[in-house]
């Protein structure tokens, strides 16, 4: 039986009149990578802060690695690593000093060895005495990831780990995260990049308006919500409007897809509901995301 690394039950969190987390129930078994997928403002970052004790729930129960939060937040943080959405490295300080400070904060017994391990992981051995300010964006993200791993945590919280990075650097980070998953670290990764969730997550939870609205393995979610096939129709606005009306008349879901429309579940279409010129492709997690959240994916 798997042991829950993270358990949230009926969690609410409001900021004034804005409800960021609205009765959230979420369980993350140990040893998996769960992708928390949702549009901006869905409540992903607030959920992450609730899990570190940097936000206190108005209601509900939170348990992380067997520790009840917020009372035992410090003990929970000792066993988890966090990679924040926004870079919060000390920019004037050297790479190795950034790591050494956090090795001390995490009470790692052998600070020197932890720094070397961090430098290896971030592949920054050659830049160890450079100020962080001199590093590229990708190097800084690798350093942030290494900083969160100095104490060999059982759980990693990755909050939009590759946001704003170019595709090549994103791929480098994905391989680092994939390595962690392979070694058995539990990972909760919030993202609004569909491809990131598809590539890394064992399971995906789609979050919108502070709640989980769907959860499962990517293939299961696709089969359940988007069927097998999606047809993309391109053309002038009037043509797109006609195609949408015909498809919707047959009960098919239609979503915007940039300059086109995407008819989801196209394999069920009858009597020309999908125009001949439409491009058919396998249904994707992006179709699920847009259908469920009503937001364009990235």
């Amino acid at each position, binding site marked *: 039986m798997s042991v829950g690394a993270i358990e949230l039950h009926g969690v609410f969190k409001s900021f004034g009149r804005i409800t960021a987390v609205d009765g959230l129930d979420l369980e993350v078994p140990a040893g998996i990578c769960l992708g928390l997928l949702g549009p901006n403002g869905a409540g992903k970052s607030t959920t992450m802060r609730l899990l*570190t004790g940097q936000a206190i729930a108005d209601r509900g129960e939170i348990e992380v690695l067997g520790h009840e939060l917020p009372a035992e937040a410090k003990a929970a943080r000792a066993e988890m690593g966090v990679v*924040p959405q*926004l870079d919060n490295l000390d920019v004037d*300080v050297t790479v190795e000093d950034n790591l050494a400070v956090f090795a001390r904060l995490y009470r790692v017994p052998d600070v020197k060895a932890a720094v070397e391990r961090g430098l290896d992981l971030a592949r920054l051995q050659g830049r160890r005495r450079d100020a962080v300010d001199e590093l590229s964006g990708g190097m800084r993200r690798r350093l942030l990831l290494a900083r969160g791993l100095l104490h060999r945590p*059982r759980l990693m919280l990755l909050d939009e780990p590759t946001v704003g990075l170019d595709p090549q650097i994103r791929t480098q980070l994905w391989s680092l995260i994939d390595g962690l998953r392979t070694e058995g*670290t539990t990972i909760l990764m919030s993202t609004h990049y569909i491809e990131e969730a598809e590539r890394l997550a064992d399971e995906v939870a789609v979050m919108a308006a502070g709640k989980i609205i769907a959860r499962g393995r990517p293939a299961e979610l696709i089969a359940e919500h988007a069927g097998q096939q999606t047809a993309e129709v391109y053309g002038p606005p009037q043509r797109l409007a006609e195609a949408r009306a015909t498809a919707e008349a047959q009960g098919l879901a239609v979503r915007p897809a940039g300059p086109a429309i995407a008819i989801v579940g196209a394999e069920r279409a009858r009597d020309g509901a999908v125009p001949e010129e439409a491009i058919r492709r396998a249904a994707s997690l992006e179709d699920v995301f847009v259908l469920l959240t009503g937001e364009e994916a990235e």
Partner: protein
Amino acid sequence: MSGHPAEAEAMSIRRLDPAAITGVMSREVANFRTFWKATTFSSVLEPVVYLLAFGLGLGATVVNRVDGLEYVEFVGTGMVATAVIFSSALPAMFGTFVKERFQRTYDAILAAPVDVEELVTGEMLWIGIRAGFYGCFPLLVTMIFGLDPAPGMLVVPAFCFFTALGFAAFGIAVAASVSKIDQFNYVTTLVITPLFLVAGTFFPIDGLPEGLQVVAQVNPLHQLVELVRHACFGFEATDLIRIAVLVAFAVVMWRIAVRRMSTRLID
């Protein structure tokens, strides 16, 4: 890299864990190494300028002796308090605000097993140590201008340290209470400058109106000024009360700072 819980479980999760506090201080030290030259330069030069302007300028032309001291000695010993407040309250105010708002440093620290109380305590202690050191510079400069060394001077760093703890906590609490950095102007104008002026640094407070004398007596900076002068020229029994006032000020401000920062940093 995963699955080594023993390393984490071995650590202490107690309140005010020294390892957490020294960890926070080690971050400050790492940063300080990048700007210590500029800070030291201004800490040395500033008292020299003040002593030239007030001690020698005013002292040679208008005032010769005050309370039985050469004016340059009077100002030089008083300047210790000025150095302490400017190297504690102001760095705490601006540093805390910048780290919280712009650098997001506290988000990083509080994601580690460190709580707000340890964070505030570590930052206060570091500022206290720094100000304890820089607070002695005016005294050293005044010696060049003729102040005789005295054994009591050896405890001046400790007086500076305790005073700086209180003002560091004051600065942290202020930073945690304002929404814009411009609002520090109100604090410097309405609080820091008056405290600095009624500390007895440049003139004895017994010449002030009675109301201001009362304010001066509860001003921690005035207590520090008196303690430093007595350390140089002979302690008095009432100095124990002055030390108690400084310690009480530090403790009260510490609790206020922890409270304000908790409100600010924990949603």
